[in-house]
C-alpha cells in the first residue's frame, strides 16, 4: 500500500495527538536526563531518543482492548496506552507512588485491568511467548484482541524469541511483534547479531507475514502497524515488523557510546523522527504554530506538575519489601468471556482425537520442492498446513491473503 504524498494519511485530530505524544516522549526523556545528572534517579536511565516514532506509531495502531508488552525504551508506547509521565518519573525515582510502589524501576511495570500492559523483564525474548499466550487467551475468550510487543535486534538472538515466534506461528496467534532494529545491542553492532540485511527476514523461518519499515517515519510506521494489526485481528496469524531506527544515546546514561562511529550518529540525526514529523505536519498544514505552542505549553505544564508530584512522593516504607510475594486473596482471577462457554464444554467440545495429515512429507511433494529452494519459501506455504478449529478462530473464508514485505524506504533528506 503506497501513500499518496499529496494527501495526508492522518486526520487533524490524529496528527495533533501523535505530535503531543512525540513531543511528550522527547521532553520527558530530556527531563529524565536532567534528573539523572542531578542524582535524583535511582540506578540506570535508559533513553528512547531517536526511537520515539517506532514506539508511538506502533502502539497508536492498537484499539482500546488490545494488549501490549513494552521494552525499556518504549516509553512512548506506554504513554499512548494512557500511563502518565509521573508513572515513569516515580518508577525511575523509586518512589512509593510509582506503579510498582518501588518494587521495580524503569519501564518495568504493567497493569492487567485498565491499561492492558504486561511488564517486561530484563531477559530479552521472554515477552514473545508471554504475549503469544495473551493473544491465544484473547481468542479463546472470544475477545478479538491483538497483542503487541517489541524486541530489539539483539533480542532476536535469544532462544525465547525463536520459541515464542514459532509457537505464535503454529497457533496463528493474533500477535504483532515489532522488531526495533536500533543498530546496537549495548555495544555490539547489528551484524554481530545476525548476518541479515533485513531482520524482517527472520519471519520467513516461521512462515509468517513481515515488513521492514523506516522506523523514524512516524506516518509510515503507523500505516504498516495498522495493516499488521488488522492482519492479526482477522486471524491471519502473527506479523513481524522490522522498524529500522537508531539508538541515539548509549545503552544507558553511564555509557558514552564511544564505540558508535560519529558519522553514524550524524546520519541518523539527519533523520530525526520528531523533526521529520514536524516537517510532515507543516507540509500538510495539519498543525499551525498556535496549536504547536499550545501542545508545548500543555506538555511543559504536565511535566512540571508530575515532577512536583514525583519529588514530593515518599520512598516506600522498608517493610514493604516483605509484602506481595504471593497473592493471598488480594486478586480475584476472572476471565472476560465474549463467547459461549458451552462450545468449550462436553458434549459440544468433543472431537475425534486424530491428526489430519495432508501431505506425507517426502521430497516429491510440492511443499518439499518449495522448501528446497531457499529464499522462495514464503508464508503462503503455511496455508497447506493443518489448520484445526482451535487456531482458526474466527473462521476464515480466504486464507490466501498475502502481505508482501515492502523494501525499506530510503529516508528523505
Amino acid at each position, binding site marked *: 500500500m503506497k501513500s499518496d504524498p499529496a494527501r495526508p494519511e492522518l486526520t487533524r485530530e490524529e496528527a495533533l495527538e501523535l505530535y503531543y505524544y512525540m513531543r511528550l516522549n522527547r521532553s520527558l526523556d530530556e527531563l529524565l536526563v536532567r534528573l539523572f545528572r542531578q542524582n535524583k534517579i535511582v540506578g540506570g536511565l535508559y533513553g528512547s531518543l531517536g526511537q520515539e516514532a517506532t514506539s508511538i506509531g506502533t502502539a497508536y495502531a492498537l484499539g482500546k482492548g488490545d494488549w501490549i508488552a513494552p521494552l525499556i525504551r518504549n516509553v512512548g508506547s506506554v504513554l499512548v496506552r494512557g500511563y502518565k509521565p509521573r508513572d515513569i518519573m516515580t518508577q525511575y525515582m523509586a518512589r512509593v507512588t510509582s506503579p510498582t510502589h518501588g518494587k521495580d524501576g524503569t519501564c518495568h511495570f504493567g497493569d492487567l485491568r485498565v491499561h492492558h500492559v504486561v511488564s517486561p523483564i530484563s531477559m530479552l525474548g521472554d515477552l514473545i511467548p*508471554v504475549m503469544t499466550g495473551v493473544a491465544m487467551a484473547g481468542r479463546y475468550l472470544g475477545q478479538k484482541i491483538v497483542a503487541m510487543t517489541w524486541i530489539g535486534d539483539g533480542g532476536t538472538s535469544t532462544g525465547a524469541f525463536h520459541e515464542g515466534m514459532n509457537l505464535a506461528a503454529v497457533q496463528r496467534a493474533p500477535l504483532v511483534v515489532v522488531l526495533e532494529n536500533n543498530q546496537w545491542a549495548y555495544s555490539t553492532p547489528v551484524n554481530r547479531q545476525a548476518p541479515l540485511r533485513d531482520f524482517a527476514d527472520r519471519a520467513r523461518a516461521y512462515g509468517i507475514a513481515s515488513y521492514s519499515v523506516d522506523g523514524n517515519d512516524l506516518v509510515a510506521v503507523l500505516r504498516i502497524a495498522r495493516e499488521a494489526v488488522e492482519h492479526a485481528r482477522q486471524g491471519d496469524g502473527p506479523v513481524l515488523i522490522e522498524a529500522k531506527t537508531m539508538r541515539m544515546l548509549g545503552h544507558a546514561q553511564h555509557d558514552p557510546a564511544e564505540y558508535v562511529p560519529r558519522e553514524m550518529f550524524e546520519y541518523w540525526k539527519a533523520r530525526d523522527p520528531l523533526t521529520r514529523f514536524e516537517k510532515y505536519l507543516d507540509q500538510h498544514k495539519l498543525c499551525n504554530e498556535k496549536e504547536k505552542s499550545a501542545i508545548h505549553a500543555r506538555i511543559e505544564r504536565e511535566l512540571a506538575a508530575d515532577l512536583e508530584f514525583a519529588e514530593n512522593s515518599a520512598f516506600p516504607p522498608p517493610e514493604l519489601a516483605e509484602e506481595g510475594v504471593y497473592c493471598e486473596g488480594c486478586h480475584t482471577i476472572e476471565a472476560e468471556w465474549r463467547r459461549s462457554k458451552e462450545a468449550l464444554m462436553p458434549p459440544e467440545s468433543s472431537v475425534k482425537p486424530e491428526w489430519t495429515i495432508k501431505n506425507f512429507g517426502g521430497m516429491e511433494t510440492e511443499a518439499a520442492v518449495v522448501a528446497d529452494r531457499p529464499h522462495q519459501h514464503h508464508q503462503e506455504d503455511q496455508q497447506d498446513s493443518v489448520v484445526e478449529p482451535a487456531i482458526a478462530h474466527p473462521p476464515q473464508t480466504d486464507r490466501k491473503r498475502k502481505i508482501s514485505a515492502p523494501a525499506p524506504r530510503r529516508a528523505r533528506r
Partner: protein
Amino acid sequence: MATVTYLDAIRQALLEEMDRDPAVLLMGEDIGVYGGAFKATAGLLERFGWERVIDTPISETAIVGAAVGMSYLGLRPVAEMQFIDFIACAFNQITNFVAKSHYRWGAPVPIVIRGPAGGGVHGSAFHSANPEMYFVHTPGLKVVYPATAYDAKGLLKSAIRDNNPVLFFEHKFLYRRIKEELPEGDYTVPIGQAMVRRPGRDLTIVTYAAMVHASLEAAQQLAREGIEVEVVDLRTLLPLDRNTIIESVRRTNKLLVVHEDTRTGGIAGEIAALVTESALDDLDGPIRRVTSLDTPVPFSPPLEEHFLPNAARIAEAARDLARY
C-alpha cells in the same frame, strides 16, 4: 469408592477441573492426540477439544511463557513438562518472569507446571531428576510433590485453583505402582500442609514423594525391632510447613531427613537449619540425612540402585540415630 492409581488420580483431577471451569486448559508436548508420554492426559482432547488440550512444539520456554500470558487474561492453564528434567529449558521464564510477577507489579500468575519426576525407572540422567530445589529457592513459586494418589488428586486441584504459580512434581515411579480408594466427588488437599503418615515416639523422619514409601517400609521394619518412628510427609516443599516438622521433633527429639534429591543443597539442609534455630533444646542427637549421592542420576540398574536411597539405608540410619 473406586481404586485409583497415582497416575489416574492426576488424570481425574485434570478432567474434573476442566469440567468444573472452562478457564482451565492444558498445554504441552504430545498431550493431545497421544494423551501424554505417560497417558496422564489420555482422553482429554477427545472430551474437551483442540482449544483446551493444546499440543505444542518442543518449546518449554514458550509453553510456560504462553501459560503466563493466558493467565493474565484470567485463564488457568496447566502446562505439562513431558519429563520434569526439561523444566530446566524453561528455567528463566519460571524464575524470572513467573516467580517475580506478583511481587514486582502485582500480576498474579495462576498457572500449574506439572510433570513426571524422580528415578528408580532406569531413565538415566535426563529422565530421572529431582530438580525441585532450584525452585524451592525461588520466592513467588509454590512447589508441591505428593506421595499418594489421594494427595496427588487433591493437591493438583488445589494447585489449579491457586492464584499463584504452582510447580507440581509427580513421582513417575509411583504412577502405576500405588493405588488406593478415592472418595467420590470433589475434594482438595491444602497446599502448604505436611502430614504425619505414621506416629512414633523415638524419632522423626521428614521426607516426601517416593521416599515416603521407603521410609514407611523402614519404619515397619524398625517397629519389629522396638523402635517407633514417626514419618512426616511434607507434601508441599514451598511454602514449607514448619510447624508440623517442629512439633514432631519436639515429640521425638530426634530427626532424620530423607530425600531422593541429591545431598548438597537438598531440603534436608534447610530443615536442619530450621530445627536447630527453633528446637535445638529439644534435640537429643545430631540431625541426620539419607539422600541420593551428589552425582547425576546414573543409568545402569546397579549404579542407579547404589545412587538412590532405599528402605534398608533409611532403616540403618534411623537405627543408628535411635541408639544415639
